[in-house]
């Protein structure tokens, strides 16, 4: 069974938490004690309906302000799939959380308030999900009950959004429009009687129908080595395994491989998952690999197929999302964490800021502030082995770590 991670994006009051609560309620994923708590709190607040947003808004600060301020994870499953929803906030100042949520998701739901239509925030939500190359985007046009389930209004919004789609960088992204009312439940899990003009799937039907090919891009296998396993016991005296997770494709016993950075060639001898041997390691599986030859491989190195080398460079240009209150400036030094590999990096050049709402670029840049997105060139103290982000979501991405605070201060997508 698949696990599908979904990011959600919407502005304040677009009804995102209500939508998630509705999905949980209609898929009978709310347990009786949770439902009871929601009923109790809704009554205390004097509502004549169930406030499903209470199912997801977890932190005390949030309940006080009535907004979502961080990424929350919500779990539910159907007979077909397990779902993890990253509930990300819609505030302008929280771009970083949206980038974070989208980075681990294969699908995204962008909410639009049918009364307000496509607003500047919508551009941002779409921009980020497109930048992060989230494969499947659902545009849920919500609060249809408040516009009398008007087909005309739905089509207007759809036309506005379609205009936006022409500007996107990642054109292959699959986009689906669905008219919903999260509060009343129309077209969320169950079909609506109020939208006879809409013949498409409900939100859940769409998610249920997503196949592996709709979720993952096919790519080149990359094996970043997490650690070397040397048990040195009597039974496994000479065992030398390389532990890691396979990204982008499959690796099989007998594959001719190259270890980077040494560029030494060998062949895959065995693939273990725990104590069982396998012929093939599927993508995203955590395995231990042994090689035919005794070659020098350590943590941070990468094993790839011999005829599929990535770029091996001491410099790269990337689009970065800056997430810290301290500014990023040219000449600044940071740690680049690329997968499990960490190298020291210097900001060589900030080319330009990219307005995350498709309103163009800003070439006059001194430094980057929180939530800025920009094209930046870095120089490294030793080479890393990367692919362009458009070809490899894992091997084309990195995070930036502040050397003084150790905090994660940015994320980047290599061009």
């Amino acid at each position, binding site marked *: *069974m*698949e*696990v599908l991670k979904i990011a959600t994006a919407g502005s304040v009051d677009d009804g995102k938490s209500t939508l998630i609560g509705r999905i949980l309620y209609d898929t009978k994923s709310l*347990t009786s*004690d*949770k439902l009871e*708590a929601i009923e109790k709190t809704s009554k205390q607040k004097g509502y004549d309906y169930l406030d499903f947003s209470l199912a*997801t*808004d*977890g*932190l*005390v600060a949030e*309940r006080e302000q009535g907004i979502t*301020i*961080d*990424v*929350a*994870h*919500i*779990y539910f*499953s159907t007979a077909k799939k*397990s779902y*993890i929803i990253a509930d990300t906030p819609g505030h302008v100042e929280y771009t970083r*959380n949206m*980038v*974070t949520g989208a*980075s681990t998701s294969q699908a995204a739901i962008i909410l639009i308030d049918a009364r307000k239509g496509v607003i500047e925030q919508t551009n941002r939500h779409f921009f980020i999900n497109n930048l992060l190359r989230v494969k499947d985007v659902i545009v849920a046009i919500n609060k249809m009950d408040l516009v009398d389930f008007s087909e005309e209004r739905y089509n207007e919004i759809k036309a506005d959004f379609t205009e936006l789609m022409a500007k996107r960088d990642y054109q292959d992204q699959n986009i689906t429009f669905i008219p919903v009312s999260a509060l009343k439940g129309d077209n969320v899990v169950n079909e609506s009687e109020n939208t006879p003009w809409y013949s498409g799937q409900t939100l859940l039907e769409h998610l249920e129908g997503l196949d592996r090919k709709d979720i993952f891009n096919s790519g080149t296998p990359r094996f970043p080595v*997490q*650690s070397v*396993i*040397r*048990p040195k*016991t009597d039974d*496994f005296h000479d065992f030398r*395994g390389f*532990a*890691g*997770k396979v990204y982008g494709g499959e690796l099989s016993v007998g594959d001719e491989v190259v270890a980077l950075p040494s560029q030494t060639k060998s062949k895959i001898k065995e693939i*273990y998952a*725990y*104590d069982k041997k396998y012929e*093939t*390691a*599927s993508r*995203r*599986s*955590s395995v231990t690999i042994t090689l035919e030859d005794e070659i020098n491989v350590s943590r941070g190195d990468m094993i790839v197929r011999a005829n599929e080398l990535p770029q091996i460079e001491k410099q790269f240009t990337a689009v970065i999302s800056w*997430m810290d209150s301290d500014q990023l400036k040219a000449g600044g030094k940071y740690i680049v*964490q690329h*997968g*499990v590999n960490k190298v020291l990096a210097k900001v060589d050049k900030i080319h330009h800021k990219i307005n995350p709402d498709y309103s163009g670029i800003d070439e006059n840049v001194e430094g980057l502030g929180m939530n800025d997105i920009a094209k930046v060139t870095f120089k490294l103290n030793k080479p890393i082995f990367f692919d362009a982000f458009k070809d490899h*979501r*894992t091997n084309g*991405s*990195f*995070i930036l*770590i502040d050397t003084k605070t*150790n905090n*994660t201060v940015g*994320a980047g997508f290599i061009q």
Partner: protein
Amino acid sequence: MNKDTSHINPLENEAIYIIREVAAQFEKPVLLFSGGKDSITLVRLAQKAFWPAKIPFPLMHIDTGHNFPETIEFRDRLAKELGVELIVRNVQDSIDAGKVKEESGRYASRNSLQTTTLLDAIEEFKFDACIGGARRDEEKARAKERIFSVRDDFGQWDEKSQRPELFDMLNGDIELGQNVRCFPISNWTELDVWSYIQKEEIEIPSIYFAHKRKTFVRDGMIWSAEDDIVFRDEDEVVEERLVRFRTVGDMSCTAAVLSDAVSIDKVVSEIRDSSISERGARIDDKRSEAAMEKRKQQGYF
């Protein structure tokens, strides 16, 4: 073939990746072991992560002194079988040293007292990473917890300045004195854990299965009356019932559920049909809606 045939596999792959990152990024990690199903699952995942080598870090149990005897027996046997070092630190010692004060009355529990003992042990052994079995589906405040969660010298969690976690990348860089709580099974649900135990045929303590127990009912929940650990009013009637436990926390705050599930298969199907969430059987969360978040800020696991 190692294909993703069930949804457990992606979660297992992720957890093994995280455990390997903990071992590689930190100097002195420890696995917090309670003898409960979540930490037993963690131990199995750690075994898998490093096979054929041994688990490269010790297990540590913060013993409230109110644990089920079945759990303690199980804990000692498992550590012995694995050949892994087991560290035990006792809440009773913190009480005797006057560091914490025992609660009294109807809802007295040693659960929150564990925090002091845990923080002292982290300092004693200079652990820089504690692996725990917390899951985001357990409780709303947990839903926002990171996989690597940085704690300061006082073990405190600042939910407003958590590090963003992107893609698979885990940033374990810390300053001296800080430590990180690591949660490899963050993305698992209760049912995932049970299904995994079933699939892997992992042994778990007997109290997870239906058994006859002297119990009494309070506030609609069933409490053990086998010993004096749970405070009981004289008018609360003791009766023998067929029950099992869904979590094996401190006896004073872990309620039983009526059940005839005597095998793992029956437990899994019972969980699948069940309509009360797991933490619904823990009184310490019910004290107030913000209970868990407050305890976490103070350093509770």
